[in-house]
């Protein structure tokens, strides 16, 4: 990086930390620290919800995902608007009426203590580990790209935000997320503008759409059906997006404390609902635009030399290993194909403006054949990297490679700052929620001594620090995850989210089930079912494939069905009038 990039990076990060510390002043009790005294407006709630969900991985992986697999990844977000409606209508009023700090408190009032502890524990386990991955994911990419030490990068990525998160709690988290998102949107907009601007003069935006579309990158809507019927292992299609994505989003936004903790800071049900519903309106178009940047980067690389594999560290390793001669030959062939594609794409764009439909279709067919050859060379190189024990997925490196190689000085620093800021937004919210669950669902619950509000505040700050350190330690031990990192985090969430959601669904909708043992046993059985299904999909000998999004409905519906099956054999502990349902 050049000096100007370092300057932009340091100034941006320092500004956010100073702003966070400036906004840290809050009441020294749990209400102030975890709920910001329930004072936030819907616009802050919206930005906080978005800043919590959108990690660095979102901005790194999504354009890369569009480059390799097309825009169909956007379907993964189709369940979010539906989930926002259900949460606004059902979850939010109940959480407000019984004035909870964490979502899991409600389960103790509705069922019993152990159900609350189980769900809170599952949350701490999955959120703690996934936050560690959220620290590691951008760190490994930056350290590979710039040769930075991975350990110090992890500490900067996961450590600096602790300064304001520990001191200011939920309030500092929300205000810094607001500033972070503004910087992120400005940076992404500039990157999008420049990638289109840097295309050759004769290639306009619609030409770029035509080209990337013909090469299969604008597959926004896919059904998952083929000649052999529905493909259950297909990760992203309209059905898995709406059904699986709905269950995942309902669980994430409705029962994951890192999100529930954001909208509980609103000063009324109205502000919470508006924040959630606005998120339902803007999330899908936002992801569409981020993915569209990826397709523009794809078109850009049709005119400029694209590396055969975007993670240069892995390529360097291959250059010195047993595949070095094969790699050299593959690179030559890839570059030759690149030059041919460049000529053909220029010819295609000229034809698309003036030529006949048949001529355009013929040229598109030629382009597809060339792209297929390029893809097969890339696949070969990936197989060599895998055979050499390396990470064969370069999705997360594609957009950054473009940024570092082609964007002007200063903007590179800003885009690197964006990676830090996006990480900080989601990690800070996660640390705040991990601390609130530990404090409220465990410490305060199991402590035999009476704790004063001032002490609760101090202990909560220490929990925030402890979870920050835990996540950095997890990041230090996370190596070679193998698949795309965004998927690794989502898969981890899908193993637990469905079950947690199932417990809440029983609590909200099956009022006749009042015995805590019923839902507790049902949750354990459903978790075993989810883990068994997931392990079965990992065994090649079983030939059983299932997209990870389907684990969410399996877990959620599993708890509901097991609860209904166990219910007739369980005693009813309380008269119906005593049931806590929020009314």
């Amino acid at each position: 990086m050049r000096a100007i990039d370092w300057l932009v990076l340091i100034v941006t990060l320092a500004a956010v930390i100073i702003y966070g510390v400036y906004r840290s002043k809050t009441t020294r009790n749990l209400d102030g620290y975890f709920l910001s005294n329930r004072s936030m407006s819907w616009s802050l709630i919206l930005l906080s919800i978005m800043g919590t969900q959108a990690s660095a991985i979102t901005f790194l992986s999504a354009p890369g995902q569009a480059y390799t697999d097309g825009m169909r990844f956007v379907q993964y977000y189709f369940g979010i608007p539906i989930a926002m409606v259900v949460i606004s209508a059902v979850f939010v009023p109940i959480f407000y009426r019984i004035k909870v700090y964490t979502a899991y408190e409600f389960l103790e009032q509705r069922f019993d203590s152990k159900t609350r502890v189980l769900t809170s524990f599952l949350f701490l386990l999955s959120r703690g580990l996934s936050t560690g991955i959220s620290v590691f994911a951008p760190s490994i990419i930056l350290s590979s790209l710039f040769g930075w030490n991975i350990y110090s990068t992890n500490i900067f990525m996961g450590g600096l935000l602790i300064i304001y998160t520990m001191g200011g709690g939920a309030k500092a988290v929300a205000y810094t997320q607001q500033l972070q998102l503004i910087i992120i949107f400005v940076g992404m907009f500039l990157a999008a503008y420049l990638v289109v601007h840097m295309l050759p003069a004769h290639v306009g935006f619609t030409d770029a759409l035509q080209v990337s579309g013909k090469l299969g990158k604008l597959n926004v809507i896919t059904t998952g059906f083929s000649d052999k019927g529905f493909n259950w292992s297909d990760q992203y299609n309209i059905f898995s997006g709406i059904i699986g994505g709905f269950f995942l989003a309902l669980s994430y936004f409705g029962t994951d404390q890192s999100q529930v903790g954001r909208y509980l800071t609103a000063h009324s049900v109205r502000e919470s609902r508006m924040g959630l519903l606005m998120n339902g309106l803007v999330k899908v178009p936002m992801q569409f635009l981020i993915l569209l940047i990826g397709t523009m980067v794809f078109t850009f690389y049709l005119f400029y030399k694209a590396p055969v594999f975007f993670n240069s560290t892995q390529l360097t390793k291959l250059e010195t290993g047993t595949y070095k001669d094969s790699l050299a030959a593959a690179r030559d062939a890839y570059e030759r194909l690149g030059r041919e594609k460049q000529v053909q794409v220029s010819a295609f764009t000229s034809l698309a403006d003036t030529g006949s439909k048949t001529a355009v279709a013929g040229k598109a067919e030629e382009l597809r054949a060339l792209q297929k050859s390029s893809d097969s060379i890339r696949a070969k190189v990936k197989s060599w990297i895998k055979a050499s024990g390396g990470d064969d997925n370069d999705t997360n490196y594609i957009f950054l490679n473009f940024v570092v190689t082609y964007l002007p000085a200063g903007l590179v620093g800003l885009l690197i700052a964006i990676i830090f800021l996006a990480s900080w937004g989601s990690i800070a919210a996660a640390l705040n929620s991990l601390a609130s669950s530990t404090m409220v669902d465990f410490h305060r619950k199991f402590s035999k001594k009476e704790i004063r509000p001032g002490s609760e505040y101090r202990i909560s700050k220490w929990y925030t620090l402890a979870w920050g350190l835990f996540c950095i330690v997890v990041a230090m031990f996370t190596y070679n995850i193998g698949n795309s990192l965004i998927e690794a985090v989502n898969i981890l969430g899908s193993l637990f989210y469905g079950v947690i959601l199932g417990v809440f669904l029983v609590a909200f909708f099956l009022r006749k089930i009042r015995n805590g043992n019923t839902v507790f046993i049902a949750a354990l059985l459903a978790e075993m079912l989810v883990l068994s299904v997931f392990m079965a999909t990992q065994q090649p000998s079983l030939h059983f494939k299932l997209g990870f999004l389907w684990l969410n409905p399996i877990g959620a519906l599993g708890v509901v069905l097991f609860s209904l099956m166990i219910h007739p054999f369980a005693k009813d502990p309380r008269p119906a009038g005593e049931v806590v349902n929020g009314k």
Partner: protein
Amino acid sequence: MKDQKDKPPLFSTWTNWYGLVIGFLVALILLFYLFTKTFA
């Protein structure tokens, strides 16, 4: 009496807001479908 603070902005009921969010999603999916059909 219903708390005035919980009344939705712009519309008279929350159901209208829910309809707007779902309707917008449906419209987006239709637009995306046309986008896919046009370019892919």
